[in-house]
């Protein structure tokens, strides 16, 4: 009868699924495949690099997922995944024991304030920026723009971009509670369409729908980040456990190699590690790199 046949098929399929699942579970545990989880901002880069890598190293598989920096760090700490992608230093993330993890910086991202084009603003001083985000200034007229109410759009609490912006552009001041969005794309779209809006995104998200703002007359360019004249930038990190397996180590090395750094990293709008003239520690100490520039 047809129904019995169907039921049989169903059971068979479920069994096959189970077997496949079990089989591949073994594979995952082996050195063949690793998983990187975390920052959605970093995901495209790691994904593209992973595809490249799998192309050259047949049989190895890099599984890249988003989920947020917090998820990435906590999962790599738990050992559930091999690599945790993060926009922030592990030290800055609550609940993470940074001493247990190894930091691999793979790129630098510059962050710039963006405003709606109708605001009539192209430059702000740090003081003005702080006044805006702490709610002391509420109309663009007060900082030299058009008569337009200021609409602040923040990234979500815990977002790396927000942490960087508050630390380096607002000199550590917290933004007052305001609208929050959990992604750069959304922020850009909202700023682009909402009169009076101000927010901040990574350089790669700036396009013609929004106006990037100079701070203290310094333009948000890669060049200025490289010399730290534009201080609002952060590293993109790939964290691993201390005793990472071979594939993990090789893959991270591959991402840090000049091949990826000079192609993918730049194509995706990041600043490559070797372009930087300075380094910065988690505490914020900036040091010049000797002779790093070619």
């Amino acid at each position, binding site marked *: 009868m047809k129904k019995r046949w169907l039921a049989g098929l169903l059971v068979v399929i479920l069994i096959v699924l189970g077997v496949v699942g079990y089989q591949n*579970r073994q594979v995952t545990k082996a050195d063949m495949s690793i998983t990187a989880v975390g920052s959605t901002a970093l995901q495209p880069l790691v994904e593209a690099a992973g595809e490249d890598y799998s192309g050259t190293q047949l049989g190895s598989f890099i599984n890249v997922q988003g*989920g947020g920096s917090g998820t990435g760090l906590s999962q790599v700490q738990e050992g559930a995944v091999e690599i945790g992608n993060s926009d922030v230093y592990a030290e800055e993330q609550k609940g993470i024991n940074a001493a247990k993890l190894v930091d691999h910086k793979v790129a630098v991202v510059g962050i710039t304030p963006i405003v709606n084009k109708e605001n009539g603003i192209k430059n702000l001083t740090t003081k003005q920026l702080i006044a805006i985000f702490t709610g002391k200034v509420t109309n663009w007229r007060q900082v030299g723009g058009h008569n337009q109410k200021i609409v602040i759009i923040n990234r979500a609490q815990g977002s790396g971009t927000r942490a960087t912006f508050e630390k380096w552009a607002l000199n550590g001041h917290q933004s007052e509670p305001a609208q929050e969005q959990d992604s*750069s794309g959304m922020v850009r779209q909202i700023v682009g369409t909402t009169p009076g809006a101000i927010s901040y995104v990574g350089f790669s998200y700036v396009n013609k729908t929004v106006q990037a703002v100079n701070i203290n007359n310094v333009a948000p360019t890669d060049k200025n980040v490289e010399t730290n004249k534009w201080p609002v930038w952060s590293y993109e990190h790939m964290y691993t456990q201390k005793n990472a397996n071979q594939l993990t180590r090789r893959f991270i090395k591959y991402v840090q190699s000049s091949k990826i750094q000079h192609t993918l990293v730049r194509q995706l709008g990041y600043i490559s590690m070797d372009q930087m003239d300075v380094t910065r520690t988690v505490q914020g100490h900036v040091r010049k790199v000797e002779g790093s520039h070619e």
Partner: protein
Amino acid sequence: MNPKTANKIATGVLYGTAGTIVLILAALLGYIIVTGLPHISWHFLTSPSKAFTAGGGIGIQLFNSFYLLVLTLLISFPIALGAGIYLNEYAPKNALTSLIRTAIEILSSLPSVVVGLFGFLIFVVQFGFGFSILSGAFSLTFFNLPLLTRSIEEALAAVPETQREGGLALGLSRWETVIYIILPAALPSILTGVILSAGRIFGEAAALIYTAGQSAPALDFANWNPFDISSPLNPMRPAETLAVHIWKINSEGIMPDAKAVSSGASAVLVIAVLLFNLSARYIGRRLFKKLTAAD
């Protein structure tokens, strides 16, 4: 007011509300399709997506969506069917049954991101399935079960009790009666329930972000060995679905044609759901006719 006038006015208002709903839907559909249709092409439907350059398609995502849907239904339908049968046919009317019903209802109103995170911790991490279609399918099963169970239970309850008596009086067990008489009679409405839930599965994003993942590795459509990682059939590969793709493009997409891809993908999604719906009505009607009317 004159009752006759009141009647006229009320009828007019009712026509108005009904018309408004139709209008809302027409506007919604029109908007989605008009903004999305220009971006849909054979190339768009079949080629893989691009991370940061223009011209990406949604081929893999589209396949993933369907595959995930099929797997989820394969897992959730038998369970929901069994539970629906038990609840409607066997469950005693007592406090425990109503507690279970309440619990299932509660699950259905939990935001899907919570279900997704639960699925992540259980399937992805605990069971070691990793970010995979299978993890996604199990999580969607959680998400799908309450509604599906409910709709099956309702479909069964709608079949008159006299049909059950007819079976029982012939010396058949309740189980046989349910399986061979009640179920076929309830099939059209069960089918509607399944298709509606299929639409929901197809459009679900939040529960999948942490389980089936947000990346769509290239697939080799010539490779049908389900054990191979690049095979489309492998249930252990990470699989971004169409809805997740739309979500991702809207949130972090840096490709220059993100907006176009997103509206195109939305249109495809809605058209797919539309097709589900229409086919469900068609099949349901056919089945109903076949089962009840004389030709």
